[in-house]
């Protein structure tokens, strides 16, 4: 079993790890540094850390200005605020001018738990994906998160990345030949009957679902789609052709996110059954995170149900 660590914790460590080799990296936060875990960077590099207060719109604007002067700003808040409250600033002051700002949304999805619906962002992939030129990422574990931070530092241009609150098992470090590249999904395990394309912490659930399905005689391919935009179309196409049906899984509204991206692409290029697993267009609610996830069927069992539907449609 791999290390159990939240992607937000791995992100915070990665910022510190890569700070010296990236002197232009600056980190901005909006009074949530201990939650977004930029506080480690703040302590180690106080002259490159800026707490902008509870003012996400202004934070994004400052980041845009910093980027015009060659800095690489990572702006941080909860996904609800960096991809929600500040959406129009991200759209007009960052993405339209194509500035090198990395917008980071921590505490994405329902796994925020007790804080409830106002803080459970299930719209960030969608919000960010519809902005032209915006890259959208959601790494699944600590290992992948560190690689994603390194890749984002090397990539010039606007991007959004979601971090999760909960500690999750590291799964990508045990994949032979695992290699992280922006815009390229990773086939974690092969299968021939169905492909489960998952992102974020649903990747771990997809792997568990594949195990359950295996015991039931179904061979499921599992794809870790850490980059939602640009979508790895070649990998999606290959999966559609080779397995004949697709289940997407995300801790996000089924509208507008990974499932939508996959369905949009396949409907125009290789129509096969695509069943979307995610939040069924409803708000979240308070509760202990695992129980909230269970209540909304964001579990391996939930994925298995969707796989059965996809297999039935395939026939």
């Amino acid at each position, binding site marked *: 079993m791999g290390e159990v660590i939240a992607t937000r914790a791995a992100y915070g460590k990665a910022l510190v790890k890569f700070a010296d080799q990236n002197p232009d990296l600056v980190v901005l936060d909006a009074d949530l540094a201990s939650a977004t875990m930029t506080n480690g960077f703040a302590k180690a590099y106080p002259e490159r850390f800026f707490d902008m207060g509870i003012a996400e719109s202004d934070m994004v604007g400052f980041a845009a200005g910093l980027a*015009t*002067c060659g800095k690489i700003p990572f702006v941080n808040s909860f996904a609800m605020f960096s991809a929600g409250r500040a959406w129009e600033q991200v759209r007009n002051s960052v993405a339209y001018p194509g500035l090198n700002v990395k917008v980071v949304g921590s505490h994405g999805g329902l796994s925020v738990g007790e804080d409830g619906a106002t803080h459970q962002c299930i719209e960030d992939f969608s919000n960010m994906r519809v902005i032209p030129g915006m890259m959208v990422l959601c790494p699944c574990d600590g290992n992948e998160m560190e690689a994603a931070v390194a890749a984002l530092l090397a990539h010039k241009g606007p991007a959004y990345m979601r971090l999760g609150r909960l500690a999750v098992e590291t799964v990508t470090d045990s994949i032979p030949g695992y290699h992280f590249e922006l815009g390229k999904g990773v086939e974690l395990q092969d299968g021939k009957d169905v492909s489960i394309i998952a992102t974020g912490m649903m990747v771990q659930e997809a792997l568990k679902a594949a195990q359950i399905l295996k015991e039931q005689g179904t061979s499921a391919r599992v794809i870790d789609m850490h980059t939602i935009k640009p979508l790895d179309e070649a990998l999606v196409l290959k999966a559609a052709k080779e397995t004949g049906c697709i289940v997407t899984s995300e801790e996000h509204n089924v509208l507008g996110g990974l499932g939508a991206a996959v369905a949009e692409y396949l409907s125009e290029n290789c129509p096969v059954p695509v069943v979307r697993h995610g939040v069924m267009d409803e708000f979240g609610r308070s509760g202990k995170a695992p129980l909230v996830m269970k209540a909304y069927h964001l579990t391996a069992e939930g994925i298995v149900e969707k796989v059965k539907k996809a297999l039935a449609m395939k026939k």
Partner: protein
Amino acid sequence: MNEKRAKELAATAAKIRLAALEAVHTAASGHIGGSLSVSDILAVLYFEKMRIQPENPQDPERDRFVLSKGHCSPALYATLALRGYFPKEDLKLFRSIEGHMSGHAEMHHVKGVDMSTGSLGQGLSVAGGMALAGKIDQKSYRVYAVMGDGEIEEGQIWEAGMAAAKYKLDNLCGIIDVNGLQIDGATADVMPSEPLDKKWEAFGWNVIKVDGHDVAAIADALDAAEQCKGKPTMILAKTTKGKGVSYMENNAGWHGKAPNDEQYETGKAELEAILKGLEG
């Protein structure tokens, strides 16, 4: 500033107004009212105060300018053309699908524009970020941001106000073009924002009030802003919306409307008379 130089700058402002009016008339679309109110400020910034080289528009050491009220691009584009960033001919393609002179200020296709703007309330934050980068890198450049007095109804302006004071951005100078009008009418009626001086002082800024059509006074205010250390400066420039074209002056209806041919000729003649008076 001696009288001769002041006359030269006032004449430059008149040329900016003429070029902006022509661009809006040619496009049959665009924001002329606020372009005419901000022209003297732009003339002093680009022809007197800012350390810039039009032949090297991306010079990292240059002073920066953010037109937060990005709809007044006709005045900014006219200023940049007159300053030599690109041929004045290019203004003919303002707002045209044939060119890249976007309706709101655009940084990638229009040489000399330091930030794309248009959505109100965002420019002071961006200028703050530029100023902060200057502080981090210990550079000596200054950053200027022009806002409208209607625009500052946006809450983000005040967020930026707090942040710039927190980080002691004395290399940042905001200028509010206080022309008293916005689309729906008088700013005092739509959303009263006075007393602006007390508000900005309370936000920790150095505040200077100036006649926004007196080029010498504007230059003095910009000098005073540069002398002020430890906090950012906000210049409150009292202006007349539509300045220089009699029928547009103090008329909210000319916020975003283009003159017809007859109106254009009248306005052009009035501005040419002003220019002749200054150059004659």
